[in-house]
């Protein structure tokens, strides 16, 4: 069996991380995140001073987001190996992953809308900026389900040579729980649970990145294992 397409999809996950970092972090400069306590004029000034970089960064960010689709698909193929004829968790992963792409594509489009006419009313720029940040940091639910169903599927792996080691199940459920604090940012403008806070932004952000780093080699290993010729009975 050829697993070349799966390997390509798995590498798309790396492409996502790299391009996303370049566009969102290094070019547009959204890290460290701007404070939700900033005034409308400060927010507008950010867009007026960095107009070109934000526009360019958001093109790259928007493109990179869709690379998470093949990545999720590669994990789904491995989950399907675990689940066999009743792949409910696999389908849940695919649906959640598809929604995840939307969650990653929409905020760059809103940020770039703010940078489209940076000379407009600062209040309106702040509105767009708020919308993009809230959409981006608060929407943990599809990623929560994504990690949860991976965890549940790995728990259900009863085969002699499991697709993923069992600790991966615990790891994914741990990650799922850690994404939850992002949902609290709607209540705060300052402090650790604001959208630029340690516990609502930095922690879930680091965990989300770390999840890719941990899952990537495990996924490659699982794909290679699948590609091995079956042992003669």
């Amino acid at each position, binding site marked *: 069996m050829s697993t070349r397409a799966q390997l390509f999809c798995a590498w798309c996950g790396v492409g996502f991380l790299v391009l996303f970092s370049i566009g969102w972090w290094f070019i547009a400069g959204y890290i460290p995140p701007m404070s939700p306590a900033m005034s409308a004029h400060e927010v507008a000034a950010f867009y007026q001073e960095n107009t070109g970089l934000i526009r360019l960064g958001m093109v790259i960010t928007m493109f990179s987001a869709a690379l998470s689709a093949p990545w999720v698909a590669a994990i789904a193929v491995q989950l399907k190996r675990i689940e066999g004829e009743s792949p409910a968790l696999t389908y849940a992963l695919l649906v959640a992953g598809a929604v995840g792409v939307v969650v990653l594509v929409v905020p760059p489009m809103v940020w770039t809308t703010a940078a489209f006419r940076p000379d407009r009313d600062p209040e309106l720029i702040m509105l767009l900026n708020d919308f993009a940040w809230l959409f981006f940091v608060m929407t943990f639910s599809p990623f929560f389900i994504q990690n949860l169903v991976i965890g549940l599927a790995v728990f259900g792996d009863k085969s002699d040579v499991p697709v993923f080691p069992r*600790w991966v199940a615990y*790891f994914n459920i*741990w990650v799922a729980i850690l994404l939850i604090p992002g949902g609290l940012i709607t209540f*705060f403008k300052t402090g650790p*649970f604001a959208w630029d806070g*340690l*516990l609502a932004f930095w922690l879930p952000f680091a965990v989300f990145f770390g999840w890719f780093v941990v899952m990537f080699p495990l996924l490659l290993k699982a794909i290679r294992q699948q590609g091995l010729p079956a042992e003669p009975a």
Partner: protein
Amino acid sequence: MSTHSAGLVSAKTHVPGEVGIWVFILGDMAIFGLFFFVFVYYRGLNIDVYLQSQATLNQNYGALNTLFLLASSWFVAMAVEDMRSKVTRLAPRFFVLAMLCGLGFAVVKIIEYREKITAGITLTSSDFYMYYYIFTGLHFLHVLIGMGVLVFLWLKAKSAVQRKGELPIADKAKEMMLIESGASYWHMVDLLWIVLFPLLYLMK
């Protein structure tokens, strides 16, 4: 004598449950550790305001819940011990008692939340209550997951009693591993509360 010392050695090197549960437990405790560190840091910057808010907490609820969780942890430990040696009818009963304690914790917590919310104290009332609601809320989520885990352990214990504990050694080891993993998780839920309780309710 030799069997006795062999038992000692294995007791010393035995890590309860499977490796994965410790990935979760240590990971989770590290995160709660970070939470507590953040709380203590910001509290130190503005201690009087935090103490004012803290004074409006009802320590009895916190203390009662500490007793509930300590008792439930003890019941779980007794059940695991029973499963490990004789497998009597006591094991599932201990798990039921542990669940009842967990339920007691949940009821007290809900009463406490209700009381605070009807008094107009919410997540955004003060920094102290922000931490109070978020930390106890996340802990409460762990308790709810733990109740599911206890139901699972209870079912395992019940089926073990029904077949009188007789199982091939490999299967028995696997069963014990699952039971110890679940029990370890529940002990962690207890431990987190034992840190949360003094941190939020008592620390002066």
